[in-house]
């Protein structure tokens, strides 16, 4: 069975600090990797995704993630966070057959 592990449940940063959220998955086959964000009171929105090609993917709002196949990791990064980045972040793995697994989520609080 596939699984997704997000290492940090709650991260607190000051504005302008750098962010890295860890995501590791276990699955032996081809995967599609996603990071979603959920702002307070809003629905899930796609930040970025990887399915093939360049393992460094760039998403919206200055976020990026790097797929490291040998480490089964897909960590999310942002060089300088803003107060408006306060949200819950979910890493997800989808197989081509449609089976999906989400991590438990990481709550990011950015202090102004």
């Amino acid at each position: 069975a596939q699984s997704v592990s997000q290492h940090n449940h709650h991260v607190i940063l000051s504005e302008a600090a750098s962010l890295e959220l860890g995501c590791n998955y276990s699955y032996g086959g081809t995967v599609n990797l996603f990071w979603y964000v959920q702002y307070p009171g809003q629905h899930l929105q796609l930040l970025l995704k990887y399915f093939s090609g360049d393992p460094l993917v760039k998403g919206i709002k200055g976020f990026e993630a790097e797929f490291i196949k040998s480490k089964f990791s897909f960590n999310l990064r942002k060089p300088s966070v803003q107060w408006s980045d306060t949200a819950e972040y979910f890493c997800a793995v989808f197989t081509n057959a449609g089976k999906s697994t989400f991590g438990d989520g990481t709550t990011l609080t950015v202090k102004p």
Partner: protein
Amino acid sequence: DVKVTQSSRYLVKRTGEKVFLECVQDMDHENMFWYRQDPGLGLRLIYFSYDVKMKEKGDIPEGYSVSREKKERFSLILESASTNQTSMYLCASSLVLQSGNTIYFGEGSWLTVV
């Protein structure tokens, strides 16, 4: 813009009632999904469907069933609601996943079972 619409945003039902949650997407997507979201547990897949009348169990299908009679509509059914099914339910849809297509989510349905 892709739109995934969940018809009921907030529901309160009694234990034992049969509950229908409806989801409609307007982009001719093959795949549709139902998840529940609980604090600290992330999103857990209940069922997904990759075509009309086709369905696959997810990680937590017990107590739920689904129906997909038309491509645009995917219904989640709680045959006999119980208090442990109080949760946020999310519907999603996508084109085939091999091409790295995005999964789009609805706004969610808050279900309280009393």
